[in-house]
C-alpha cells in the first residue's frame, strides 16, 4: 500500500549537507503494523515527515519515490498533497502538549481535521468528534470537547491526538514516539488503546520508536534504522530471537528481558550516534560495533542481503557468523569498557552553557 523507494532527504545547513535519510526503501502493507526503531537522530522521524512532505527547512527530499497505492506522493500538486495529509495518511506526534494548538478547543481541532477534507459536514463532524473521543476512552467526552489542551492530562491529550489522527479513517497512521512523553503507567494505557484500535479499525500503522518493548507488543514487522539507513528488517519474532545486525543485537541487549538469566548484564552501546554531515568512513556503525572487523572500517556497508525468511540485514559480519565466545567476549569487554569509562569520566560535564 505504501512503498518507499530509495528515499534521500537532506538538510543543507551552513555546516554542510546532512544526509538525514540516506537511501531508505521499505513498504507497509494494508492493515499491518510496522515498527521503525533506532536511536534519536537516525532518521526515522525524517522518513515519516518525508512521506507527508513535511520536511522542514532547510531540508528537502532530494531523490527517491514514495508511492501510496500507486500514486507518486513526491510528484503530487499542493492541492493533492493537502488532500493526502490527514486523510489517506495521518501522523501523530511525540509531545501532545506542544503538538496541540493551546488556544483552540480540542473539539474544534479534531473537527477541523475532518471538515478540511470535506468528508463530513460541520454538524456531522461535531457529533463524530464526541464519538471519536469516546472511542479513545476519554471520559466525559461530551463536556471535554469544549476544553483546551492545557485542561487535559498528558495521557488524555495523546488520546485526543490519536482521535484526531484517526478521524478521517486513514489507510495509514504514522505514530512518532506516541508514548515517549508520557508517564510509564499512562504509556501502558496508550499501548493498550492502540492495540485495541488496531484490532477494531484495521488501520495500518507505522510505529516509530526507540522502545523495543513497544515494538514487541504492537508490531508484526520491524525496520531498524541507523544513521539514515535501514540496517535490518524482518518479522518481529525473528528479529527479536535472532537479530543479525550488531546494532539490532546491541539494541536488544540494552533492554532488560524477564526471560533471561539474571546474570546476563545489560550492555549499553558505547559512543554516540555519528554526525550525519560528516559520517565516519566505511560502515557508519563501525566505531561502536562490538564485532567490527577491518573490512568494516574501509569498505562501505554492503547492500541488504537475505539472512532469514523475509529478513534482511546489512553487515559484513552478521551475527550468525559470530561465535559464542565472540558474543561473550563482546558482552564482557563492552561492560568493562563502559565501567572503565565511567571511572575516568568527569563528575560533571559542562559544555558551554550548563545551567545558564
Amino acid at each position, binding site marked *: 500500500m505504501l512503498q518507499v523507494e530509495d528515499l534521500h532527504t537532506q538538510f543543507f545547513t551552513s555546516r554542510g549537507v546532512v544526509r538525514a535519510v540516506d537511501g531508505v526503501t521499505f513498504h507497509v502493507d494494508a492493515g499491518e503494523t510496522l515498527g521503525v526503531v533506532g536511536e534519536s537522530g537516525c532518521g526515522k522521524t525524517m522518513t515519516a515527515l518525508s512521506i507527508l512532505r513535511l520536511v522542514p527547512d532547510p531540508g528537502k527530499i532530494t531523490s527517491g519515490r514514495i508511492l501510496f497505492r500507486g500514486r507518486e506522493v513526491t510528484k503530487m500538486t499542493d492541492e493533492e498533497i493537502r488532500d493526502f495529509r490527514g486523510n489517506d495518511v495521518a501522523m501523530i506526534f511525540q509531545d501532545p502538549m506542544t503538538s496541540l494548538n493551546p488556544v483552540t478547543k480540542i473539539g474544534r481541532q479534531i473537527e477541523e481535521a475532518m471538515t478540511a477534507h470535506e468528508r463530513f459536514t460541520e454538524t456531522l463532524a461535531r457529533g463524530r468528534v464526541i464519538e471519536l473521543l469516546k472511542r479513545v476512552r476519554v471520559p466525559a467526552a461530551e463536556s471535554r470537547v469544549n476544553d483546551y489542551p492545557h485542561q487535559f492530562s498528558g495521557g488524555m491529550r495523546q488520546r485526543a491526538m490519536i482521535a484526531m489522527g484517526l478521524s478521517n479513517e486513514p489507510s495509514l497512521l504514522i505514530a512518532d514516539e506516541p508514548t515517549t512523553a508520557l508517564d510509564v503507567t499512562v504509556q501502558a494505557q496508550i499501548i493498550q488503546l492502540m492495540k485495541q484500535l488496531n484490532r477494531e479499525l484495521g488501520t495500518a500503522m507505522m510505529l516509530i520508536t526507540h522502545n523495543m518493548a513497544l515494538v514487541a507488543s504492537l508490531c508484526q514487522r520491524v525496520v531498524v534504522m541507523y544513521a539514515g539507513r535501514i540496517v535490518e528488517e524482518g518479522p518481529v519474532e525473528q528479529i527479536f530471537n535472532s537479530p543479525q545486525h550488531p546494532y539490532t543485537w546491541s539494541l536488544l541487549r540494552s533492554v532488560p528481558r524477564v526471560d533471561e538469566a539474571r546474570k546476563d548484564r545489560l550492555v549499553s552501546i558505547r559512543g554516540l550516534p555519528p554526525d550525519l554531515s560528516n559520517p565516519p568512513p566505511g560502515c557508519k556503525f563501525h566505531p561502536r560495533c562490538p564485532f567490527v572487523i577491518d573490512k568494516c572500517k574501509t569498505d562501505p556497508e554492503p547492500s541488504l542481503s537475505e539472512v532469514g525468511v523475509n529478513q534482511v540485514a546489512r553487515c559484513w559480519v552478521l551475527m550468525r557468523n559470530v561465535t559464542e565466545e565472540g558474543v561473550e567476549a563482546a558482552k564482557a569487554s563492552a561492560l568493562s569498557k563502559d565501567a572503565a569509562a565511567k571511572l575516568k569520566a568527569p563528575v560533571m560535564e*559542562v559544555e558551554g552553557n550548563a*545551567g*545558564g
Partner: protein
Amino acid sequence: MALPVAANIEDLSAWEVSEKQIGLWSDALQRFRRNRLAIAGAVLIAILVLIAFGSPLLVHLGILHDPIKQNVDYIESGPGQNGFSIGSDELGRDTLSRLMYGSQVSLAVGILVQAIILPIGLLVGLTAGYFGGRIDNLLMRFTDIWYAFPDLLFVLVVVSVFHPSLLTIFGAISLVNWVGLARLVRGQVLSIKEKEFVEAARSSGSSPAKLILKHLLPNSLGPIIVTLTFGIPNAIFLEAVLSFLGVGIQPPTPTWGQMVFDGYEAIYANPTSVVFPALAIGFTLLAFTFVGDGLRDALDPRMRR
C-alpha cells in the same frame, strides 16, 4: 577534557562561572562583529564622540566658527552663503558648529543618565530580589506607581517647575528610566535564588548572598548592558523633546532639539536649519539602536548553541 572531581560546591560553581564568562565574551564579540548594522552604528557613535571632543579644539584653531557667536549681519544664510558651510540660524550663528557642539549635550545626556540609573536600579533590584517577601512587594508597588506616570509628562513637569538646568534635566530623565533596570536586576536575582546550588549552600550553612553575587554578575551583565544601551537613545530623545518644547538645556548651549525648535519658526524660509539637526538626532538614535540590537543578539544566551 578531564576535570578533577569536585571537592565542594563552592569550587564547582566558581569553575562554572569563569568558563561561561570566557566563552560568553569572545563569542559575543565575534557575533557583534558580524552584524554590519551594529558596526555601522558603533562607527557613527565613535565619530560623534570625536566630534564632541574635537569641536572645541577646532574652534580654538579657527577652523570652525564659534557656535555661540551671534552675527546680526548674516542671519538665516543658506548653505554656502557668507562663509557658513551649512548656513546660519536666526541669530547668525553657524549651523555646522552648533550641530557639532550639539553632539556633546546629546552624548552627555545619554551616557550620564545611564550612569545615574545604574546604581539606583542595581540597589533597588538587588534589595527587592534578595530580601523578597514584603520588601519586594513594597518596592514593586513603588515601581508600579512610577510606571503609571507617563514619562514625558513627568519630565516636563519636573523640568518646567524647577527651571531647566543640567541637574534638573538629568535628574528628571533618570527618575523615569530607572524602573526598567531595577526590574531586570530583580528578575535575575530571583532566578538565581531558585537554582539548586543556592539551596544546597543554604542548607550547608553558608551564606547564599556571596554565591548570588558571584553568579549575578556574569549572568546579568549581558542584559544590563543591553538595557543601558537602549536607555541611551531614550534619554537623548527625552532631552531633545524638552529642548524642542523650549524647556530643555537653555541657550546659549546648543542642543539639537533646540535647533529644531528654533529652526521650525523659519521653516519656510530656511528648511535646512531644521533638517540637519533633525537628521542628526534621528541618526544618532538609530546608531545607538543598532548597537543595542547588535549587543542583544550577540549576548543572547539562547543563540549560543
